[in-house]
């Protein structure tokens, strides 16, 4: 008789549970909690102590800000690339934004050395490409040195490195070198040129970016234009001749939609909300089925709410309800209103609440609306 594989069995017995179902059960639970009697503490029990504590925390925060803020210097080499990513760029590096949307920033680095700091709590995926090597950031601090060979060093967190489909995950303290792949540099002369430190938006938005300028060939990109690849597979001509194609289209998809969603669920179970948000965001980019898309948007909204990114959560819920094929507009709209209110975006909260009342005059979430 064959041995029973309990790990396999456990995987197969994942419950048919979803955020939507969770929300619906919660709605019923709320009603039953109310019916079970007023368990809410009397007002005096929410004593002044928490208020005093909050005030003390705010004061401490302000003191910390005062302590830190005057020491913030505007460093022309320190560049904010997106809400989540900051880069320290050396004199010889060029960084170009190839693609940017709400949750994804794709950068191309040519030459030099750049230290990237990516805040995982923003739920943004940052991808750096250097000489044919793609580094997908999973929330971390790492450096990329593009000097004939591409060297990736991870100070903290994890990155996924992909070179022509060969992938490796590097974690804290690890370093790897990759042979470069010859690439043309047309991208460097177009779009948002972040050519070397001048012209970049300085961190904290304290200095306006300089007017857009052409990338002048630095020693490193001159080298890049003429260097011969070493031990590297050539990039196909078709890739090079399609500068208008989305940069992500030319690269292999890292994971299937379902495995990303599964991983997100597993990470949530482990309490890793940042990791879960990252996987959901990746899954969103891989799924064209509207219904599945809506479910992932809803789940991402729930995760963002749990991470206290209330405005991001509200946007996710709104996107979920606006998606074609969504059959849970009511839940998503109520969740959107709640999160706008938590984010203190009162106008949006009011608008979402109003829309909810119009659409669902007898809705299940009327009592939970902020307005």
């Amino acid at each position, binding site marked *: *008789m*064959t*041995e*029973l594989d*309990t790990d396999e*069995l*456990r995987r*197969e*017995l*994942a*419950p*048919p*549970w979803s955020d939507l*179902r*969770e929300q*619906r*059960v*919660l709605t*019923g*639970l*709320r009603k*039953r*909690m109310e019916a*079970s009697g007023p*368990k*809410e*503490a009397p007002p005096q*029990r*929410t004593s002044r102590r928490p208020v005093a504590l909050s005030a003390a925390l705010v004061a401490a925060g302000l003191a910390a800000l005062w302590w830190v803020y005057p020491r913030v210097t505007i460093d022309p080499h320190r560049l904010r690339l997106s809400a989540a990513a900051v880069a320290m760029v050396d004199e010889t590096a060029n960084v170009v934004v190839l693609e940017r949307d709400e949750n994804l920033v794709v950068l191309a680095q040519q030459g030099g050395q750049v230290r990237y700091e990516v805040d995982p709590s923003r739920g943004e995926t940052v991808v750096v490409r250097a000489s044919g090597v793609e580094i997908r950031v999973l929330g971390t601090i790492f450096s990329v040195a593009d000097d004939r060979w591409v060297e990736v060093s991870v100070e903290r967190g994890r990155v996924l490195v992909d070179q022509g489909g060969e992938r490796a995950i590097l974690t804290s303290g690890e370093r790897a070198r990759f042979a470069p792949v010859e690439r043309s540099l047309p991208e460097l002369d177009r779009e948002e040129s972040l050519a070397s430190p001048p012209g970049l938006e300085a961190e904290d938005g304290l200095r306006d970016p300089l007017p857009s300028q052409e990338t002048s060939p630095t020693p490193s990109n001159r080298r890049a234009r003429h260097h011969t690849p070493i031990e590297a597979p050539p990039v196909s001509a078709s890739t090079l001749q399609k500068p208008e194609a989305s940069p992500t289209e030319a690269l292999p998809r890292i994971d299937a939609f379902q495995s990303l969603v599964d991983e997100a*669920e597993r990470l*949530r*179970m482990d309490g890793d909300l940042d990791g879960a948000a990252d996987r959901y965001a990746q899954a969103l980019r891989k799924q064209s089925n509207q219904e599945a898309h809506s479910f992932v948007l809803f789940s991402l909204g*729930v995760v963002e709410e*749990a991470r206290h990114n209330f405005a991001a959560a509200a946007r996710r819920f709104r996107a979920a309800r606006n998606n074609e094929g969504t059959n849970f507009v009511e839940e998503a709209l109520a969740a959107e209103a709640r999160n706008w209110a938590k984010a203190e975006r009162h106008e949006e909260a009011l608008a979402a609440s109003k829309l909810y009342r119009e659409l669902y005059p007898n809705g299940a979430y009327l009592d939970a609306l902020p307005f």
Partner: protein
Amino acid sequence: MSRAREGNRVAFEQLYRRHARRIAGLVYRLLASDNELDELVQETFLAAYEGLDRLREPERFGSWLRSIAVHNVRQKIARRRRWRNVLERLTVPTTVEPGLGEAAQSLAQLPPELRMPFVLHKLDGYTVEETASLCRISKATAKRRCAEASKRLARRMS
């Protein structure tokens, strides 16, 4: 947790968000059924809400909640039995729900006496002692039932 213990519903809802998925998984495996999953998850949290002020060790909320879930499932199975012809249903496969995967169907066909200790010990990581305590059986019986369940499942799934 402290705010939830004081009766703050919003704080309790956060606890729900954190634990609902795990409770749903446990209940689903114990029942091997999707039919009453929502109801049991809800009842588990309602019982927790009503009994939270009696929880002596708040840091053990998760395991306390799971023990409530196990208790509720046992009650549910007991109630089912009262409605059915008891002896037949103990060994004869229950009606298989459409839509359940092969693993869940195999699990559903085990009698609850075997399924519950197997799920708790082999799938959800409870020790033999904890499993025995939750199922209200001796440790030796818990071990024996786990072994028997494993054997039957392996036969069905091979």
